[in-house]
């Protein structure tokens, strides 16, 4: 039982961070119907951004995470302008391939420059024990940061003018254009925020896990599962999806060998896509 509690806490804390990564993907999907296959490499870039800023410039890792998130916004806008804008109205195959092309470019440059040997950031905040549970403070801070990011995104989407524009474009792009919403700018901004969240989650992960340039792929796959759990295009659902996935990752190792985790995750993924494509929290179609 003690082991279950410890494992569950670990999973839950990670779940928040998974949720933020997935939120970026689901935002992009919801606003422009694009499945962003360059999500994983951006997460990895977030990890390496923090690594470089912390190791080379001696920046505090959490400060570095914020800088990396800001750079993520810029990167997203650039990716949108280069690869996505031209094919935004083309069939899904085009956007899938265009974003995958960006994935290949980033991974290619990344492996050439950083190689695929694992890196880690020398950073710890110590641990505390509460009964059977050992809390790693880096993970607690990451979970809190993830919550803050979710709250921030929610407020941004609900209360600010650009946020309202984003929701209007997600709802009906041509109608929004007729109402004077600058849709191209809003699409670019949404893509930027999506990659910002990816880079941000990558940065947070890098404070407690070792990583390589290829690590993002794992989190990209988790993001797919989470996005489907929470409902495509539903950012707050993504946080809950992340928590569900985190709990599963905490519980499955108690019942069967850890290597079965991906099998369970992806079977769940396909079942949910098939039975409730709008996600666990979406309205029934």
């Amino acid at each position: 039982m003690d082991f279950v509690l410890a494992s569950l806490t670990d999973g839950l804390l990670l779940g928040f961070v998974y949720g933020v990564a997935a939120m970026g993907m689901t935002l992009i999907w919801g606003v422009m119907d694009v499945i962003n296959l360059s999500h994983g490499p951006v997460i990895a870039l977030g990890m390496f951004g923090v690594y470089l800023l912390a190791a080379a410039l001696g920046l505090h890792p959490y400060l570095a995470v914020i800088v990396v998130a800001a750079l993520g916004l810029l990167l997203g806008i650039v990716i949108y302008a280069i690869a996505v804008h031209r094919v935004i109205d083309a069939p899904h195959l085009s956007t899938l391939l265009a974003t995958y092309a960006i994935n290949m470019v980033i991974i290619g440059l990344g492996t050439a420059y950083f190689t695929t040997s694992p890196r880690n950031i020398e950073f710890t905040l110590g641990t505390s024990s509460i009964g059977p549970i050992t809390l790693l403070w880096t993970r607690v801070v990451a979970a809190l940061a993830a919550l803050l990011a979710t709250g921030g995104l929610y407020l941004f989407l609900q209360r600010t003018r650009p946020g309202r524009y984003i929701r209007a474009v997600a709802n009906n792009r041509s109608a929004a254009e007729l109402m004077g919403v600058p849709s191209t700018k809003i699409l670019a901004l949404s893509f930027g925020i999506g990659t910002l969240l990816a880079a941000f989650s990558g940065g947070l992960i890098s404070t407690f896990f070792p990583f390589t340039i290829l690590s993002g792929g794992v989190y990209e796959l988790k993001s797919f599962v989470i996005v489907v759990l929470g409902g495509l295009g539903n950012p707050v659902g993504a946080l809950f999806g992340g928590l569900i996935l985190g709990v599963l990752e905490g519980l499955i190792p108690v019942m069967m060998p850890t290597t079965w985790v991906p099998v369970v995750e992806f079977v769940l993924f396909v079942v949910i896509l098939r039975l409730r494509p709008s996600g666990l929290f979406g309205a029934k179609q």
Partner: protein
Amino acid sequence: MKRLQSSLGLLLPILLVLLIAAWPLVTSQASDRESAFTILKAITLAASLNILLGYTGYVSFGHIVFFGLGGYVGFYLVAVQNWPLVPAMLVGGLASGLLAFLLGKAILQLRGAYFALATIGVNEAVRAFINNFQPFGGPIGLTMNFKVYQQYGGAMQALQMAFYLMVLLTLIVVIVSHRVRVSKFGLGLLAIREDEDAAEVMGVVAPAAKTWAFVLSAIFPGILGALFFFKNGSVEPHDAFPLAASIEAIVMIMLGGYGTVIGPVVGGLGFQWARGFLLTNRFFKNIQLTVTGMLLLVIVLFIPAGAIGWLRHRFPKTRRVLQ
């Protein structure tokens, strides 16, 4: 004359495949034979995926699942059960076809991007399953006892035979893909690609047609997998289910021309040639993935119809011969 023109659509791709096959026979270099094998393997993967992706319009990121599964089943039969190669290849193909049939029942109702996402999930789930499945050796995989090759007159002869089988398989894929393209069944698939609801109204039984297109596109990678891992001598999950290879097959189709018979042949040849060039070039060696990515981006953004589609569009007369 008219007959000749209509059969050129099939003859041209066959001729191209035969030229690729003849190249190592002329030079009689083992390394050329290996290169030709790789190109033919790429063409087989791309042409079989084209039945689903090009004709039916369903984007699958899981094509390599069928390659891996067929490879594992075929390899298990040859290495552990001592079956001869050709029946093992056929059973590998059937196993993949069966998986596609069951999967098709489950996920072909999903449309567009949902289907694409589900195929990514299937790829990961099957890979993780094989990783944990002990009869297939789990994460270590299986290796072939060298004695198996003796039945075929030694390893050298076995490699040569594998090459001939590869040529034969590629020819069959090209012929089947042409037969589908000109048949009523294929016409139904094209209608589904353009507008699935409209196709159903016009009397295309979409669920059945999609399922059979999926099964047909899965059988060939299954057979190919069995052949490839027989030649390889060992099979492990990492080699059998590379997600990247699924995407490379899509790139080849896009490069050559989506939904055409000769497109995947041209695309497979072009892609492998370009990759060979990049890998051996001193400057590009380390960033070949980046260059391939840029190439893909340029195709997607500026010539989405691919080389053949562009030719057909630019020079309407070529439409008679290029299919």
